């Protein structure tokens, strides 16, 4: 029976096998100063990870099967992942001000805030105060506006 330990072990086993396959793509140069090459440590780590994940996967089941993913609100989590990714894509073309405002306002909205004035005020205040903190106190410059509109 699959339980959380085995599910995790299976994921790590797949990752380790993929990692082990990629080891073959590491170019080897002549004249390594020691017996260790660029492949040595990855090979050792991958081998050990495959062995331990198999050990965890094949051990007699002691834990009850649990469903840690069942009660989660994926309809809320998935849009948040998308929102974060969109923030990454929009930060440069839209500029810090607009992209951050949209990200925060979108986040507040997704989590149930429906009062537009409150949502906009908090998002705008945080965006502005953080930018001021960065530029005035910490001396870090972050382009506020999109590239075409920047002064």
């Amino acid at each position, binding site marked *: 029976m699959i339980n959380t330990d085995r599910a995790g072990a299976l994921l790590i086993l797949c990752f380790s096998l993929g990692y082990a396959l990629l080891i073959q793509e590491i170019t080897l*140069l002549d004249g390594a100063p020691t017996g260790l090459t660029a492949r040595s440590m990855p090979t050792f*780590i991958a081998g050990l990870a495959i062995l331990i994940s198999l050990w965890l996967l094949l051990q007699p089941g002691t834990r009850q099967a649990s469903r840690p993913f069942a009660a989660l609100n994926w309809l809320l989590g998935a849009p948040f992942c998308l929102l974060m990714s969109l923030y*990454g894509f929009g930060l440069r073309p839209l500029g810090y001000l607009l992209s951050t405002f949209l990200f925060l306002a979108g986040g507040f909205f997704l989590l149930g805030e429906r009062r537009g004035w409150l949502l906009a005020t908090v998002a705008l205040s945080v965006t502005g105060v953080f930018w001021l903190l960065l530029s005035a106190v910490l001396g870090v410059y972050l382009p506020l506006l999109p590239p075409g509109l920047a002064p």
Partner: protein
Amino acid sequence: MIEGISAGLSAVFTLHNIAFLLVGCLTGTLIGMLPGLGPMTAIALMIPIASTLPAETSIMMMAAVYYGAIFGGSTSSILINAPGVASTVATSFDGYPMAKAGQPGKALAVAALASFAGGLIAALLLLLFAPSLAAVSLSFHSSDYFALMILGLVAVAAFGAGSELRKALLMTLIGLMLSTVGSDPTQGIPRFTLGMIDLMDGVSFLLLVMATFALSEALLQILRKPAGTRQQDPQTELTSQSKPLNLSLSRQDIQEASPAVVRSSLLGFFVGLLPGAGATIASLLAYGSEHRLAGRVRRAQFGHGSIRGLAAPEAANNAAATGSFVPLLTLGIPGSGTTAILLGAFIAYGVQPGPMLMISEPAVFWGVIVSMWLGNIVLLILNLPMIPYLARLLSVRQQFLLPLILFFSLVGVYLVSFNTFDIQMMVIFAIVAVVFRLLDFPMAPMILGFILGGMIEENLQRALLIYDNSWSFLWQRPMTLIIMSLAVAVLILPPLVNRFVSRR
């Protein structure tokens, strides 16, 4: 030592450094207070800001964030029975019943004073131990470092048994795998870059820490919100009350708590020295030992608002946090997940903790030690009276708080690299971290593996060069042999002891 202390004092007592120490204490307290967000998240969130500061300032600030977060975690344990971190779970055993019985101010004062005393005693011990250990470790060679790092990896991973041990080891190996992404340290050969230029420098430590702690924690809290939530998050009477709390303690209270505080501080410090133990084990051990030491009448009060039961874990967890700086500062070996993140932060600021730190960066070495005294005084004098007001943060609604945490994490990483590829990587790492956290796989060993991976490879290369490509250093050099034997013992003994105990 006198010279060192005066160097530390002059490093700390500048307006700039004191200001950032205050910021660290306050921010740590605020973040640590939020349920689910502990010292690791607090430190991760502050790394981008700290990276803009001079090394000694940033390190003092990060240390302040660390003990500020532990202090903050106690507040949420006492006021709403929601420990911000595992190390303050024991605090809630007696702190919350005391607060519920109408004495929240007294409970907070006991916790703050015990934390203060624990931090102070441990800082004194740190002052005594760290320079001696640093002096001994000056004779260490690459092979000894290699062995020490193996010990560090194994010790943290080995603090479980059975499948927990295997899970911790697997996560350590995942961290080691991630550390190999980028250029090979000796010949500069690209590894696991998938043809992407952005991966040539490897995976950023900050990115990994922020994604696996701050971002994944916020995502988990979002995922755990019931569908269609529009309700206000519950506020407790204790966090929303407007009248000031009575923080005064009677002489009898102090007399009762004092011996427990001294014992627990010593216990906490020495537990904190051990790799893998840390503040959680220290606080639970202190609570357990005080429970055993108490007489029949006092023992009955444990769990119902005992002053000793509250003071002991508070003193121990703060002392352990300070103790964990000894291996970090002197050997460059992190003893816990939190100090692993701190080690990564040190390296990111261009400071290499280890035996040479005391000689090459005396201002940093002694400054951190001295700043701990000052930081504990700050926590007591400034944060304690402000606790009733800071605790209002606990009533800030999550629909505002969670997007803000996501924003600070994302923009924090972006500010270091100015590369939007990092944001996409963070999202991917955060999703993977959420999956593993749901499957109950620990994240701290992965961070440890990631940080130590590069160092292990470098030190092994150096040791092999010195020993003419022979592995004989493992048995020919006594120090290496001793440390490697310790590592094997740490890995093998706990499961054997567990098996023996369970058979009996």
